[in-house]
């Protein structure tokens, strides 16, 4: 492209670098305005008693000490973590079963793989309301199955009645909605495992379970890790399903709902920001945990 080939490669490299930065600029500018600036002001505001509109004063760590004694915050953190642990574990196992099943060859496999995309294409709010209808205590289909058809329960279950049943119900919706996504990632991973390794192991007399644990699972680790990280981060910031199902109910308020309440409903910008910072830190801890685990397994 240069008129004189003697103009060194180094010059080309500088020009490429300059162009690369130029191309990055619009994205970085957007990131600075909509992500970096709000993030920095959130941290700053968490040390103030800002209430939107009112005056705002630096109050040091007061918001954080209040947080320590805030039972509602503790409850929100706890239910968020429980939800995350439960759904991510179930989704990993179910996703693996789905992926392994859809990796074997059978008639209609292509169609089945396509079906994995169906729950993904549905808006969270809509899937939550469909399940809300199915969970209904008096005319919901689940109670009809459990009581009327399978006789597993003597009377209709109030699925949203207690904190535990509510948590299990909402987890079922998340599992339905996102297990296919985990399965897709694992399926992509399965397709990269060379078939001859598995065949060689079979010839050597390794059974299917042995083959899974000593070949398939280690080979799938990167794909599984990516899926788990994505799911964990998503679950930790869960808002939609809980909000649609239970609204502002105290015992099912997740961290995200608690932040939204404090900021939008109560206008407590300072306190809400402090909760936001703790949420960010919690998510950072989980990311570090995964990265650390991965590094250790790679050694």
């Amino acid at each position: 492209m240069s008129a004189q080939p003697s103009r060194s490669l180094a010059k080309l490299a500088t020009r490429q670098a300059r162009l690369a930065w130029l191309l990055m600029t619009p994205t970085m500018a957007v990131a600075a305005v909509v992500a970096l600036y709000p993030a920095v002001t959130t941290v700053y505001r968490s040390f103030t008693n800002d209430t939107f509109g009112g005056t705002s004063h630096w109050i040091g760590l007061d918001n954080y000490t209040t947080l320590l004694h805030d039972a509602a915050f503790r409850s929100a953190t706890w239910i968020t973590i429980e939800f995350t642990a439960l759904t991510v574990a179930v989704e990993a196992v179910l996703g693996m079963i789905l992926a392994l099943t859809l990796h074997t060859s059978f008639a209609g496999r292509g169609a089945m793989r396509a079906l994995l995309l169906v729950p993904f294409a549905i808006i969270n709010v809509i899937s939550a309301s469909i399940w809300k209808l199915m969970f209904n205590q008096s005319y919901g289909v689940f109670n009809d199955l459990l009581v009327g058809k399978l006789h597993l329960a003597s009377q209709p279950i109030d699925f949203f009645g207690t904190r535990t049943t509510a948590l299990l119900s909402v987890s079922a919706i998340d599992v339905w909605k996102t297990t296919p996504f985990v399965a897709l990632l694992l399926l992509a991973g399965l397709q990269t495992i060379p078939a001859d390794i598995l065949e060689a192991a079979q010839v050597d007399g390794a059974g299917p379970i042995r083959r899974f644990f000593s070949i398939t699972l280690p080979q799938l680790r990167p794909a599984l890790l990516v899926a788990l990280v994505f799911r964990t981060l998503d679950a930790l910031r869960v808002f939609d399903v809980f909000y649609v199902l239970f609204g502002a109910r105290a015992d099912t308020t997740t961290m995200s709902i608690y932040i939204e309440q404090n900021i939008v409903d109560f206008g407590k910008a300072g306190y809400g920001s402090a909760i936001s910072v703790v949420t960010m830190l919690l998510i950072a801890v989980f990311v570090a945990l995964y990265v650390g685990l991965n590094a250790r397994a790679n050694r």
Partner: protein
Amino acid sequence: MTDTLNRQASPTTGPRRRRRSPAARIRRLLLYLLVLMIAVFLLFPIYWAAKTAVSPDQEIYATPAAYLPHQFTAQHFTNALSDPRFLRSIVNSLIVGGCVTAISVLLGAFAAYALGRFEFRGRSLMRYVILAMSIFPQIAILGSLYKLLTATHLYNTLPALIGTYLIFILPFTVWTLASFFQQLPKELEEAAYVDGASAMQTFWRVMMPLAAPGIAATAILAVIAAWNEYLFALSFESDSSNWTVPVMISNVGAQSSAYTIPWGDEMAASLVVMVPVIALVLLLQRRIVAGLTGGSVKG
């Protein structure tokens, strides 16, 4: 299977099991049973939504539940489609989704081109910035965005959503497009350079057309993500004329008490919104899977 093959296989029962031994048949049967269960798991909620949408009210609230619709009605669809607020919310969602996707794809393609095709100092740092942005909890900056939007008089307008949705859609677009760009053969780019094209000409005339399928998949995924968003739409739009589909649908249920939720209308509205998206996703399934799994599957 022909006779010769059978005869060959049967007397010499070597270590390899015959293809259609009883055990293999049972395994086959179990596999199809598992596949059937997966299909039911994935599709039942959608079937139930569709069944509810076409059933008259007395059948929706009947116990025991009717698993097949006995009578059909179009009333729920008529109700949903004659509700101007619902139609308005679809238009709003289309405007927001369309604008944010167009901006993200344009800006994101520049950045992705730089990240995917250029070697420059700071590239890996930029990749980390993009990744950090995409796992960033949006809820954590809710308060700051709220302030930013009120200060710029964008609160309660559709541009408020277009701007804030860039937080999660732009990094996703950059990430996915970068992996598509990376897969393109280097020879084509080099040929363009040799022919005297500048870097930007190469980008517009060679790389963009080649990446078109990847861009299409990324755009669909971006639209779905925007279409799905609930928290910002709920927090930044107080006026019902600015509501997007998720806010509209969740409000239908929330306004009524548990026993009077107009399930038929709500499910009809849900179907109107989700069926086109499901159809689109199924139509473009291969590309979408490639986009979702970071381009690790051939699209």
